[in-house]
């Protein structure tokens, strides 16, 4: 089974102080890394390929630094990487990105395309399914399990309230992968050394046969306008003192707010 995985380099923002510049998060001091959902997708692809004897290709669209996530994918077990790297792609909406990925796939035939459910930075959760539309592939989202058959796959989809749904798709197909589907492996030194000998294919818009008006802002119908940080509210009141004092003050506050009569 030949599998393509789309991966994205995103900022780790959980504990970072964010700043916005020109309607974009200032990435200067942020640590970048693979989008969490994509990491699960790579692991799932490598497992499926290991079981079936096929190969895994990882593909990303991003600046030079984005190559880091491709090397990571290779170190985890992918055999090939494609990097769509061109300033012309900047400002693309998900549909435009999907068309760029479709152009990069071209005539290559993959049995399965895996994407993360969403990216942690923009959270559109749409590039994957839009790519399925462009390629006219059946797709399933929110996968928490994938079983392979002869010419089909069975996908377990995560629904609300711990319920799940099993769907069957003919191959080729596209699946967006939910976090927790597996336990992603750690990158090993052996994996990193293997990547040393590999070449990563670099593609500009031109190489994909895309003109200026087919990429970036010009080709996009959805344009970003403003990015805002949440307003800083009143700081939390830290209660200090002995346990009795803290509990006493907590009761007082709850009473003040009308929580206790």
């Amino acid at each position, binding site marked *: 089974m030949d599998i393509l995985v789309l991966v994205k380099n995103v900022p780790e923002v959980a*504990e970072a102080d964010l700043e916005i510049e020109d309607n974009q998060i200032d990435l200067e001091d942020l640590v970048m890394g693979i989008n969490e959902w994509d990491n699960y997708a790579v692991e799932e692809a490598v497992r499926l390929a290991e079981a079936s004897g096929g190969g895994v290709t990882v593909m990303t669209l991003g600046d030079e630094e984005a190559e*880091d996530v491709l090397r*990571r994918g290779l*170190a985890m077990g992918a055999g090939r990487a494609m990097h769509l790297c061109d300033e012309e792609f900047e400002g693309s909406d998900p549909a435009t990105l999907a068309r760029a990925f479709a152009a990069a796939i071209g005539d290559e035939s993959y049995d399965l395309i895996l994407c993360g459910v969403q990216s942690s930075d923009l959270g559109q959760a749409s590039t994957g399914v839009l790519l399925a539309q462009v390629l006219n592939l059946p797709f399933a989202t929110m996968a928490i399990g994938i079983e392979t058959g002869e010419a089909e796959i069975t996908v377990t989809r995560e629904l609300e309230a711990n319920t799940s749904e099993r769907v069957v798709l003919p191959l080729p197909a596209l699946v967006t992968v939910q976090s927790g589907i597996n336990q992603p492996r*750690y*990158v*090993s*030194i052996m994996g*990193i*050394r293997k990547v040393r000998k590999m070449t990563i294919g670099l593609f500009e818009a031109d190489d994909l046969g895309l003109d200026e008006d087919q990429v970036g802002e010009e080709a996009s119908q959805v344009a970003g306008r403003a990015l805002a940080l949440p307003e800083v509210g009143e700081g939390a009141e830290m209660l200090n003192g002995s346990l009795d004092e803290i509990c006493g003050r907590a009761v007082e506050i709850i009473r003040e707010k009308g929580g206790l009569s």
Partner: protein
Amino acid sequence: MDFKLSKEQRDIIRAAAEFAKGEFTERALEFDRSETFDLDLWRAACELGFVGTFISEDYGGAGLGFFEHCLITEEFWAVDPGIGQAVLSTTFGAELIQLFASEEQKHTVLPALVEGQAIIATAITEPEAGSDTSRAASTAVKDGEGWVLNGSKIFTTNGTLAQWVLVFALTDPDNDNRHARHSFFLVPAGSEGLEANKLTGKLGIRASDTAELAFNEVKLDADALVGSEGQGFNQLMAFFNRTRLHICAQAVGLTRAALEESVRHVKGRVQFGQPLAQFQATQFKIAEMATNMRAARNLYYEAAWLVDQGKVDHGLIAMAKWFSAQNAVRAADEALQMHGGYGYFDEYRVQRLYRDAKILEIYEGTKEVEKIIVAGTVLG
């Protein structure tokens, strides 16, 4: 001059950090309190190739440099010094084997260390011979083709866990040159007459095994000798010029942890109506910690890089070791100070860092010994 790490080196840092954060964080307090360790963590690190990266590909290693081993060490120690030491000290001695041992010894020992099949310990310090290593009194006396080993060692890292112990022993006590009196021997841990006892009650790095060893008429084959007879002291100095680099990385990793804990705390802790980070007294502490950490890292980066280029700069390595260790101790002290009473409890990581830091100024060359070396290179 290019200060940028290679892509491969950046990948190594990221991989080591991810493994350590994923596997060490939850276990650190437990190991510290109980003075135990789970060897499965060491095996997992070996499976991922983090252990013995400096060992040549000819002997199963990754064939990377001491520099890369330092990068991994810094990341492991930045998560937890005790576990970092327990995992990476398992090859302590491989540096000497790789430099001076016979091909047979190298092939016997080194692949097993990389694969997680064996641990090596190096026994140098004795009750009456600490910094003055040339006073080591354990003896190896020729007995036919082989040797007989007698004496005792103390503070031997992994002494009860190792499958092999490299023993620094007196072979020519009457030699006029006190640096030509000793030799190293590769001793199988199961040898009759060798007894190892775990030492407990350490201040820090309590996940790491430390033992005292007793040698009572331990019979060794002729091929237990490592390199040439009488070269032990010189081998020891060459060994330390590699392993001290790792101590620098340990120190910088610990300093980083102290700084991270401090930054998190002073931003959140409000006193006198404002976060501690707003006080200039706090800012000065943070500024000093961050600056000294970068300085220490640059020192060891250069020293390790030079060794990997085949240029061992004894003085620079001593500078890096002294400075980074002293800096780690100070950083841990200031981090605890900024945490106030909370930092005095072991539920707060800074307490452990404070205790873990001190060994850095003691093992593999006290700060005083390092300064003597530095002064020697400056004054001639």
